[in-house]
């Protein structure tokens, strides 16, 4: 049987007694090397310095420089119940980023408050940030009770003030415990000096907190980390690699990827040096092969087709904390990293900056400064897939990179739908200003025996898509329709100037295709094109551009997103084109006047 492990982080305002709590714990649980305590006490005596538990920790890990803990160092101790790792996070404000690093690895936070000094700025700040980083279970130690004469009223004053603060940010601590770390009161065993305290001593309370379990029944979330095709030694596998964030996946599961909307089925579960397996569970770093050769980018989230999908959006509301050297400002492009996805991001609006001095007076500022905690609106260029913090917290977490450094972290708390996107506004204006000739659209439709149409053929094989699209043009034309095959490669021959960088190339391709589609459909043509590797977002944009004319999406195989007509990709291109023609007639898209 493996023993239980728990990682605990200890935070609080500087000098409120974190080191003393740890030192005392190590000493009283017999976790120190033999003779160490006496040795440090002797050194102190020799130098005529009062003994401090902090010196003991110094001696243990040579951990201090400039007199302040500079990083979350680890100490180990055991109780009968389990093994603990305790991370000593620096209380000094300059080291908030180290505190965050330590806290992100912990399951429980211990917040130390000096009973005499009461709640200080960093007590509040640490409370907020620890909770945002994901540590929801907080034990509050009201320390140095010896300095306030073990007085119940003093304890309650401090506890009540802090409880009120935490309530405003939706945190409910597990317990408030009055202790004197230096004297050892209420740490390991119940102190006789505070008979008014009815609760358990600190260690007893800590031992009762259950080890965190992944919540069951969460839907599958598999952020795609990378796609591998290592051909060495004739390896044919195309493996989608990543770590399951939540849920489980089995061979045979129908899956869908977000934000692209592409679909497929899991063919196999892949792992090196293990017996063949059929399923994978959350937390496992694993790989899958699919039944289709999907074109996927790292950063997509795979889920099961029958599961609740993640959200996709370009604008969202988030709580963030900032540790960057320079403030977080509007009108500057940063890099967002969420799960395995990356995207350019901008700060659109600051809704409130939570002032650690005083929660009630949220201040308005134009930028988010170092060590601020804030609620703000962020915007990315292409949609990202995520979950809200209240649904699946792990999928809501992101960091912001400024000039090569992680400068902030946050969680997404709400989705925002911009009123009308810039694209929609463009199209509305364009339609308003559109100049028409003397031929009415209805006259044209009657003469041609159909309205203008935009048809996209898509599927996993670029070759097949092209073949079907061309045959469809041929057969429509042979039926007397005004059909025109448009290859996207032609757009770059002159309509675009090729000056856009790679990241925007796709956006530009969709834009030009859409604008051209608007003209050709207005001219009454049935435009047929083949598209490869597009996702749901691209198709939505294309539809907006081609408006007021309609876009029909024919998917070959089951993997394409947003299809109007989905066909089996085992058919020959000729048969496929014939089926499409028949469907156009059946749907009255091409009315059959020859009757």
């Amino acid at each position, binding site marked *: 049987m*493996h023993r239980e492990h728990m990682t605990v982080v200890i935070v609080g305002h500087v000098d409120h007694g974190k080191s003393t709590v740890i030192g005392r714990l190590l000493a009283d649980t017999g976790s120190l090397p033999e003779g160490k305590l006496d040795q440090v006490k002797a050194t102190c005596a020799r130098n005529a310095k009062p003994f401090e538990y902090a010196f003991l920790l110094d001696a243990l890990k040579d*951990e201090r420089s400039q007199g302040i803990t*500079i990083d979350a160092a680890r100490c180990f101790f055991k109780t009968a119940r389990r093994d603990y790792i305790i991370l000593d996070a620096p209380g000094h404000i300059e080291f908030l980023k180290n505190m965050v*690093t330590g806290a992100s690895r912990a399951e429980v936070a211990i917040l130390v408050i000096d009973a005499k000094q009461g709640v200080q700025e960093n007590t509040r700040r640490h409370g907020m940030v620890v909770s945002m980083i994901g540590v929801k279970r907080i034990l509050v130690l009201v320390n140095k009770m010896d300095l306030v004469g073990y007085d119940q009223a003093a304890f309650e004053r401090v506890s009540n003030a802090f409880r009120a603060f935490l309530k405003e940010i939706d945190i409910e601590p597990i317990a408030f415990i009055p202790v004197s770390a230096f004297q050892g009161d209420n740490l390991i065993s119940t102190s006789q000096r505070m008979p008014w305290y009815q609760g358990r001593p600190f260690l007893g309370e800590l031992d009762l907190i259950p080890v965190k379990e992944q919540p069951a029944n969460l839907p599958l979330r598999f952020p795609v*980390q990378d796609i591998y095709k290592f051909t*060495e030694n004739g390896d044919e596998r195309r493996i989608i690699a*990543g770590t399951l964030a939540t849920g489980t996946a089995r061979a045979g599961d129908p899956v869908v990827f977000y934000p692209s909307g592409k679909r497929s089925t899991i063919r196999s579960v892949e792992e090196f040096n293990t017996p063949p397996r059929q399923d994978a569970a959350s937390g*496992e770093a694993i790989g899958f092969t699919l039944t289709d050769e999907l074109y996927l980018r790292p950063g997509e989230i795979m889920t099961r087709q029958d599961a609740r999908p993640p959200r996709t959006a370009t604008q969202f509301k988030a709580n963030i904390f900032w540790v960057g050297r320079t403030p977080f400002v509007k009108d500057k492009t940063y*890099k967002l990293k969420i799960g395995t996805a990356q995207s350019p991001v901008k700060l659109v609006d600051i809704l409130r900056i939570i002032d650690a001095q005083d929660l009630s007076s949220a201040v308005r500022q134009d930028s988010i400064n170092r060590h601020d905690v804030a609620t703000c609106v962020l915007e990315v260029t292409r949609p990202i897939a995520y979950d809200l913090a209240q649904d699946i917290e792990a999928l809501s977490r992101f960091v912001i990179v400024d000039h090569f450094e992680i400068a902030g*972290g946050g969680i997404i708390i709400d989705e925002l739908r911009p009123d009308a996107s810039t694209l929609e506004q463009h199209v509305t204006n364009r339609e308003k200003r559109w100049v028409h000739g003397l031929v009415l659209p209805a006259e044209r439709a009657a003469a041609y025996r159909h309205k203008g149409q935009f048809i996209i053929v898509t599927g996993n094989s670029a070759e097949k898509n092209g073949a079907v699209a061309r045959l469809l043009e041929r057969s429509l034309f042979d039926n007397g329709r005004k059909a025109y095959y448009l290859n996207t490669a032609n757009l770059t021959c002159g309509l675009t100037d090729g000056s856009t960088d790679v990241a925007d190339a796709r956006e530009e391709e969709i834009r030009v295709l859409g604008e051209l589609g608007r003209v050709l459909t207005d001219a009454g043509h049935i435009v047929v094109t083949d598209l490869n590797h597009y996702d749901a977002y691209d198709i939505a944009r294309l539809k907006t551009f081609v408006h007021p004319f309609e876009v029909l999406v024919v998917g070959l195989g089951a993997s394409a997103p947003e299809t109007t007509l989905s066909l089996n990709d085992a058919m020959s291109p000729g048969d496929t084109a014939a089926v499409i023609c028949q469907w156009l007639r059946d749907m009255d898209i091409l009315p059959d006047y020859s009757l």
Partner: protein
Amino acid sequence: MDSLKKLESQSVYILREAYRNFKSLCMLWSIGKDSTVLLWLARKAFFGHVPVPLVHIDTHYKIPEMIAYRDRLAREWRLNMIYGENTAALAKKATFPDGAVDRLQCCKHLKSEALRHTLSGEWPRYRMDHASGRYEPDTDQAPYTGVIVGVRADEEGSRSKERYFSPRDKYSEWNVSDQPPEFWNQFKTDFAPGTHVRIHPLLDWTELNIWEYIEREKIPMSSLYFDQGSGKRYRSLGCYPCTAPVDSTAKTPADIIEELKTGKFTNIAERAGRAQDKEDAGGLETLRQEGYM
């Protein structure tokens, strides 16, 4: 998931992040148990393949079995195997004990400097040619911007401050007091030109975890780790003038696990057999900041 599986998953995740984000990536292989486990984890991460070059710093004072073992695995697993060295110091005999320098100086020459200049591409690299089985000068002299290293936080004090992704400046220096934040498995994968990043997938492992994993996965280890009948074995591998075997009759990974669990070595540091660590207490941190791992 048991704790060993969790450690494995985390290490695999880190390796995949490194592979995805660094164009010029390599992995240091000292032939010791930690970096061999790291090599195995790379095979886990990449489904049996090892798509990054393995760099070994050859001091030419390594115990001969180590080099034989290195080349055997390199051939069997078809590794992209590279070594580098300090040719000048070796020629001048600026080495210990046959030259006029002490152990730390020797380490500095044969390890720190050799490593720094091999990674930067300033000094020649030698690559195994799988057709001939010999090492040939490597034509690729591009500096490595991502270097995967098998250090563990429990090894000694200075390492407990490490990050999984830890930046080094132009001079390979490590700024201990100004480390990037690291949370939610988001790492420092962006870096200014001229700097590079050390990647530490084994940071959370202990010596016991390493042996338990070797046992579970049946990873082939150098025979030097096991008692071959003399009642001695190596606990940590290094150069023969400075590394001594320990008294132990452990013949298999299972024996070693038993030894570690029952506390035979509880009060003896793992690298106690390494003479250079004793010369001065701060020496190791200095070497480390300079780039020696």
